[in-house]
């Protein structure tokens, strides 16, 4: 499978902002993800949902980007949850303990 271009679409839904991620979450996702969070900040929700339903690959640099995003959200007092993670990436979020700091929702919607 070839690398798939990363995308991040920010949509406002009641009580939260959802960031729908797609493609490969690796070093190349850096600017797109940072830009998405800027839009989230402008909307100012108390909760941000990261939808990984269309993400097929996350590497360690992608994990680092999620850590950075989480740190910024926590600094801003914003709850973060992850939806649509595959079982494998839920395991990775657990062993890296990302799941201690964000709600992990099984399935692709909540």
């Amino acid at each position, binding site marked *: 499978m070839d690398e798939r271009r990363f995308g991040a679409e920010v949509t406002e839904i009641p009580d939260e902002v959802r960031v729908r991620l797609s493609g490969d979450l690796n070093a190349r996702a850096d600017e797109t993800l940072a830009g998405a969070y800027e839009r989230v900040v402008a909307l100012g929700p108390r909760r941000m949902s990261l939808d990984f339903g269309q993400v097929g690959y996350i590497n*360690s640099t992608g994990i680092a980007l999620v*850590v950075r995003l989480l740190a910024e959200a926590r600094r801003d007092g914003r709850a973060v949850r992850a939806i649509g993670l*595959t*079982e494998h990436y839920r395991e990775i979020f657990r062993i890296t303990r990302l799941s201690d700091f964000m709600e992990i929702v099984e399935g692709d919607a909540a």
Partner: protein
Amino acid sequence: MTALTRPIRRLLGRAAPPVEAAPASSTEPIAEPATADPAISSIGLDIAESDPLLAYLQSAPGPVDLARLELESPAVTALREAGVALIVPLVSQGELIGTLNLGPRLSEQDYSTDDRRLLTTLAAQAAPAIRVAQLVREQANEAAERERMEQEMRVATLIQQQFLPRELPNLPQWQIAAYYGPARAVGGDFYDFIEMPGGRIGIAVGDVTDKGVPAALVMARTHSILRAEASRSESPGAILARANELLVPEMPARMFVTCLFAILDPETGRIVLANAGHNLPYIRTDDGVVELRATGMPLGLMADIVYEETEGVIAPGSNVLLYSDGLVEAHDPAQKMFGFPRLRQAMTIDDAGSELLDRLLEDLHGFTGPDWEQEDDITLVTLRRASGVSQQAAEAPSLTTGFSIPGEDGNERLAMDRVSAAVADLGLAPARLERLKTAVSEATMNAIEYGSQGRADVPVDVEVEATPDAVIVRITDRALSGAVPDDAETPDIDLKLAGAQKARGWGLFLIKNMVDSMDVTTDGSTQTVTLTMARKEPSDG
């Protein structure tokens, strides 16, 4: 001018005509201005909490004339001696936060009604401002103290990590997995693997009463003692007895250590253990789940304890679980305890070692729910002895294949997909395949970054071998930047979120958690990372 602070209230002022108020959150005397009028002098004195002057001022409607004040008060006497004639209480939101202390008027006349009205107005306006200044300073001091404590805790966490094994023993025919989850930044649980003569392995699992820093300090000491005693004896009972003798005189009050010490002979599966009040290990055999029983008092409670030894044989295909209280004593939102029956039930499922551990943690998190605040440290160590290989060898296909990729950023995805395709027919369970793919991807990323320096003309070689027992992937790079550093700090999400550790640095951590073993060899011009993952057992489904 007066400053009042808790718990000692200190009065600080100037015994002369009208003086300015100053923030009152410090007990240090306020410095005299350089141009101070020689007629103005400052005084500083402490007022005891019990001095009736404080209660009097608290409810006084305005300035208080000291000459007319009839009060048995050491503070009043001291103020009079310092030349104070009039005290104006500074009250903010019902709390006395200071006073303005005035000496006699220079005209030697009494303070007039207008003077008093002016002073009352001044006090009403100054008191809230002084209170705000006090609060700001208190908060700044508290923030600095919090930061100092957090920094100390970060250091303590790093120190404690040094006491946990950096690597698990790599034993042929054995799968060993361990989990350590402190309830706070540092904890009192520990586990250790100690190499012993004859290829045997000492295994310690312990739990110090209490949590946090006190428990971590006792844990560190116990860990050191056990290591030292294990080098002097080959008897688990003798090792615990000696550790107990050393710990008893230095154990803080109301603290003790439960500990299980086992010695495993990987060749025969024979395990000998002694127990200092710790949870009994579970062994899953063909006949069901059994406990290995041995009795003994926890370490550090009393001297001259004899520790009973017990022994057993871990047959091929059997699992062993050593664990601390934190798992069985975890509660769900309805305050129901996880408990031993649930743990025992989880043990009945035949599974590979690392998957048993994963399943236990999944069971735990499913039980406690997402909002669980971990109550106690949790330590789990699982050992699994592989089933007989001859039967597997007849059933499991084997292969060796290899390919090269350009050493260019992003090509780890290519290596991952090609390895995935190469092992597609081996029947790896989907979860194991995903872990292998992640490990291959991360190891190839390192090879590209360090071995090829991102150059497309410097290739990375990948070899996939399937033996009857395992899938082995060897990733060889040209070592342009030397070896991949393996001394990097263990990634810690708490530190990363606090900005005390950079967000990156997950690669090696992920690899080590994804496969059963990772070995690195180098011959100067190349470096090879070998990833090994056991193939599924027939019972894995």
